[in-house]
């Protein structure tokens, strides 16, 4: 129910762009698909694949600028290259506010060439990607519009109901008068008085009164019922954090990949809250003076981790694994967390109730493409049904998927 109709669309766009990327020929012998992942997880927070400057220089045309060996040496240990007095390196260092790039010692030839291949290919495919982005934005806008339409309809319905009620009262009043047989008598009461009297007579009617009492009780029961079920649902929860970290700035404007800080999101059950050391990758040079950044420094010096407040709390009885939904299902973080890149303060956008999970499992297609795990299942499903294979169809509604 929840905005699910845009998901397939996004998925389609996503897969289309990936497809177009994978058909482009990389110059280096690296694997651009692997490279994309590496790039997003490691480089994207400081570098753009195009010419734009983020923290460090844009990487468009990097292979023309420097040769492979230099790049390799630089990526693996930039400090050493600077220390060796390499002109280009020193210049770069000076140019970018003496911000030293993080060393990626674990990167070998395979990784580096993959990243380079991706950078190259991404620049070639940039127009297509831009189009895809635009499409997604439109879809998102349409979605929020839908919500408004729904609200408008609701209000309109209420107004109509009110009008009907008034009409009914008028009819009742008329009937009442007819009944009394004094219709010929000219009603000398003012219109306000008449409505007032009419209402009073209506409310004095035992049946109407009883009906109202019953209705009131029913609504009360419904409200209590909803209220009780609402216990523990904290939709819209947006606690104040010890450091007013802005996702809007970091994830939105800076376009830092979620996985850069939330390291576990593609790997494990928990996405993880970044350790102070991750903050320090950038903030040991950027905005050192900010009082809030100073808090990170203080934390490290005092050996006292920052106590963030959890925003999204699932009960412990529910097992939720991030990697299943990100790495396997290919869902975007926004699916469950809302438009984080636009949030100054992170807020729990969805109810996170079981019903919410179930709804999504009922309506979401299994990301089975290219995953050999699903091959046989898909075949069996397609043989029996013309609809897409939903999560529900592969047991996504079974209890022990989440509760054990």
């Amino acid at each position, binding site marked *: 129910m929840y905005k699910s109709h845009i998901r397939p669309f996004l998925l389609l766009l996503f897969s289309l762009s990936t497809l177009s990327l994978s058909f482009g020929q990389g110059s280096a012998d690296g694997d651009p698909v692997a490279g994309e992942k590496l790039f997003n997880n490691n480089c994207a927070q400081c570098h753009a694949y195009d010419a734009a400057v983020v923290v460090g220089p844009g990487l468009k045309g990097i292979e023309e600028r420097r040769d492979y060996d230099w790049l390799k040496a630089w990526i693996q240990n930039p400090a050493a290259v600077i220390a060796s007095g390499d002109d280009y390196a020193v210049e770069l260092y000076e140019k970018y506010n003496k911000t030293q790039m993080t060393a990626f010692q674990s990167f070998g030839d395979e990784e580096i060439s993959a990243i380079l291949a991706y950078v190259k290919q991404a620049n070639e495919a940039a127009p297509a990607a831009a189009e895809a982005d635009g499409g997604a934005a439109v879809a998102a806008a349409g979605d929020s519009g839908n919500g408004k339409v729904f609200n408008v309809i609701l209000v309109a319905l209420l107004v109509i109901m009110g009008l009907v009620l008034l009409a009914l009262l008028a009819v009742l009043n008329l009937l009442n008068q007819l009944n009394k047989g004094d219709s010929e008598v000219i009603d000398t009461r003012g219109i306000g008085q008449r409505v007032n009297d009419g209402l009073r007579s209506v409310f004095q009617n035992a049946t109407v009164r009883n009906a109202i009492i019953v209705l009131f009780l029913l609504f009360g029961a419904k409200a209590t019922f909803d209220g009780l079920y609402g216990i523990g649902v*904290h939709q819209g*929860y947006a*606690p104040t954090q010890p450091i007013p970290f802005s996702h809007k700035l970091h994830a939105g404007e800076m376009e830092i990949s979620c996985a850069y800080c939330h*390291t*576990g999101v593609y*790997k*494990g*059950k*928990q996405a*993880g*809250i*970044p*350790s*102070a*050391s*991750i903050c320090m990758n950038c903030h040991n040079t950027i905005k050192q003076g900010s009082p809030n950044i100073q808090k990170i420094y203080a*934390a*490290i010096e005092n*050996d*006292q*981790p*920052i*106590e*963030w*407040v*959890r925003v999204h*709390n699932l*009960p*412990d*009885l*529910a*097992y939720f*694994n991030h*990697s*299943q939904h990100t*790495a*396997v299902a290919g869902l975007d973080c926004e699916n469950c967390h809302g438009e984080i890149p636009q949030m100054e303060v992170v807020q729990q956008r969805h109810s996170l109730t079981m019903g919410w999970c179930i709804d999504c499992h009922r309506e979401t297609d299994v990301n089975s493409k*290219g*995953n*050999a*795990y699903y091959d*046989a*299942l898909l075949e*069996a499903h397609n043989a029996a049904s013309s609809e897409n294979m939903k999560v529900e169809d*592969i*047991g996504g509604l*079974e*209890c*022990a*998927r989440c*509760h*054990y």
Partner: protein
Amino acid sequence: MENTTKKYWKGIEEYRNDIEVVKNAEKEFNLEDLDGGTHRRDFLKMLGFGVTAVSLAACDAPVRKTIPYLNKPESVEPGVPNYFATTYAEGGEFCSVLVKTVEGRPIKIEGNKLSSITNGGVSARVHASVLSLYDNEKLKGPQKEGKDISWEDLDKEVMAGLSSASNIRIVSSSVFSPTTKKVVADFTSKYPSAVHVTYDANSASGIIEANEASFGKAAIPSYNFDKANVIVGVNCDFLGTWLSPVEFAGQWAKGRKLTSGKDGKHTMSRHYQFETGLTTTGASADYRGMIKPSQEGALLVALYNKLAGNTIGNSAFSDELLDKCVADLKAASGSALVVSGSNDKAIQTVVNGINSLLGSYGNTISFAKTLNNRQGTSAEVAQFVSDLNGGKVDAVIFMDANPVYSHPQGAKIAESLAKVKTSVSFADRADETAAICKFIAPAPHYLESWGDVEPKTGSYSLQQPTISLIYNTRQAQSSLLAWAGLDSDYHKYLKSNWKSNILSGKSWVSVLHDGVYDSGASSDGTVSFAGDLGAAAASIASSKDGGLEIAVFESVAIGTGNQANNPWLQEVPDPISKVTWENTLAVSQKTANELGLEKGDWAKLSAGGYEIELPVLIQPGQAHSTVSVAMGYGRTAAGKAGNVGANANPFTNGVNWTGGASIEKTKSGYTLAQTQTHETVMGRSAVVQESVLSEYVKDNKAGRFEPMIETSEGAVKPYTITLWNGHEKKNHSWGMVIDLNTCTGCAACLVSCQAENNVAVVGKKEVVRAREMHWIRLDRYYSTDADTEYQINPSHLEKMEHASENPEVVIQPMMCQHCSNAPCETVCPVLATTHSSEGLNQMTYNRCVGTRYCANNCPYKVRRFNWWKYYENDQFDYNMNNELGRMVLNPDVTVRSRGVIEKCSMCVQRIQAGKLTAKKEKRRPVDGEIETACSQSCPTGAILFGDMLDPNSRISKALEVEKEGRAFHVLEEINVQPQISYLTKIRNKDLVDSKAPGMHSATEHHEEEAHAEEEHNG
């Protein structure tokens, strides 16, 4: 608790800050557990990623803090487990293991399949050792005379004491770590008066001394039970406790495996067991004879005489079974193996003689690689005790040894020890010995330590810490090095020793990764027997029948008692008696009648001036005029959980038995904490199906009970009749095949399951009320003398309830059968238990309202109800009642709240994790990749788990051949269609000897009668 939380973690900065607060202890309702306050924050600051909750206002959302690592170690990803290879080595037991750690805390032990010795098998005690790590009754730091002291001061004072000492003793259990040996040598070179005494609580002194006399090799050889076609064990529980049980059980099982079908393996070894008390080995044997401990020698002499055809001495022992055994042994010359658990040198000499006569050396026994985990001899211990008592020792160091408790003369040792000027113990708690020592320099648990072992010549296994030090402890080796004036960094020492002496160029990191290393070294294994059999026989002949004899044995769960304070182990039901939480006086029914003892009595057992009072257990299979008592109990300083039962060590007398005992009833009306109170299977062939080898060879379906339902179209199989359409399994169909032939009842699966699934410990009182929580149980059924044919006759049914005097035993692991037509699911009002499309019977704890209808309607009675809240409840003061103990909880499994049902989930968390891994790698799961806790830890491979829809899985292949063979479903006739199949128990027994149901009718009636008479005479 408040004051101590801080102390736990003092040492943490030295290592990585990578421990997570136990998140799952506060499952389900306990959101506002946190009491705020600064101590907790302090506690958390040193932890890694932690989740906890503070309730600020009742109506508001509880604020849950989430505390990330300050500096996340690269290898740790919250929620993703890491595995480290290490080695369990305590008190002469060892096992190469993998340790699963989550956010820096070890939560589960798994077998290391790379080990050439244990081959991935793990015993119950090894599984439970992870809980011993989180024992909050351990010492928090070094102590001097019961008071805290700093390490610096302790070092100073101990070194002063040592330097002034002229007679130092290091008393340790067998040290089979090459590096520790080097440390001891370094220590000795600094203090030349130091003598290293090896003291094993349950030593193999007899074997070592006999081997020295017989072959000139003071060592224990390697045994190869897999190569033996005929195995004879004499009071030797090699499947449960003897020397290297995990290894032996694996070997034994190889010889016991059968496969149906034309190309199947239709041969198996024949196993004779002569023993006093019924052990798991005896229960698994084909033929079992009952002997008094005093008869061990006589039996072996008689065996030798009959085998050799000449006489080495007189033996009064004669038994029909022995003759049969002799015949089989003769036929199996070269592939026979005779073992004895005796600690008597003379007896072991005769055993050596027999084995050498049978040509076992070089075949089933090998000296090429010796087994190093028992090195102590009684002579050197006796020397130490007399030195100590004589006041000759002025400094003594105890390393992994607790003689005050475990030595027969413990009381005397305690007295003398108090007089020793400098005494140090490395015990982790103020145990019986350490409490008397001046200093306690607590050593950390093996999971916090570096180390190595060489259990067999040339086979090494490494130990590495899997968690930073929990308390302010220091490894014994480091202490010894420090006192020897060397660098106390044992990690460095170990590494350099390995680099220079062991690795011979191999990479340290890769060995550390694997955990095991085989150098291939072996010595010349050829031996020739030169023992003095005559003298041995004479010595044996001199030992007379001891009237009522006490046999002291090591129990599978508690062993020698070094892990006595482990509630998991205390709650493991003994594989045979099913008693938990205490030791008992096991006597046979006949002896009980003679002595006037009954079920529910307590009695005082006394011999040689020592007496203990324990409950009486009427044990079928117990030799007459004997009492079996388990050692390892009766500890007085083990801790809250461990101080139960009575200490039987003084009865060991060096050879594990004492004669001339007397027993006296003291009180009655007691209920033993047994998890199974009924003895026999009541002739229910739908439950247990068994046959003998000869029949099996003729017909793979021998012993199978195949119920048929009469219909108008004739008799059909139960599963063909149904009202429902059923539900197809499309993706996976998880199931198990359990081989009754190789299950020894060792309870490794039980503890493994307990560790994996956060199963609560309920304590003795609740076990008495039959409320244990174990998800897997090992049903033990004795055969009965009554006709097993079912008759509607109350008096006959009453007879069927009684076990034979010396019964055949079947052990049947029983857990949730995951029925496809599950009776439990139908009756749950709230859909808390439903069926998955992968064949799992899913139990949703958080939906359960606790009507227990499902448990009632379960024909297998495998569902467990949470009668109480078992965590954070002072009534159940076990591991789940303290912060530290809860660290062992598996974060992937919910801790069940009060009032809900739980049961075997077929380790669904592992299935889900395995599937996820496969999905991430875009492939199907590979067979063997996903294992349940029980299947994974079985040393004999009796439990096989897998996907029955995967045609290449082991389980599919096994079922393919066994479908028309040994595979059966328990209670097939009620058509619940379980996912678990069992394979019939086949004994390598002559048909006439079998007591299995249905076997009687297969033989001629008169034969049976004749045999019954024989049994009685024997």
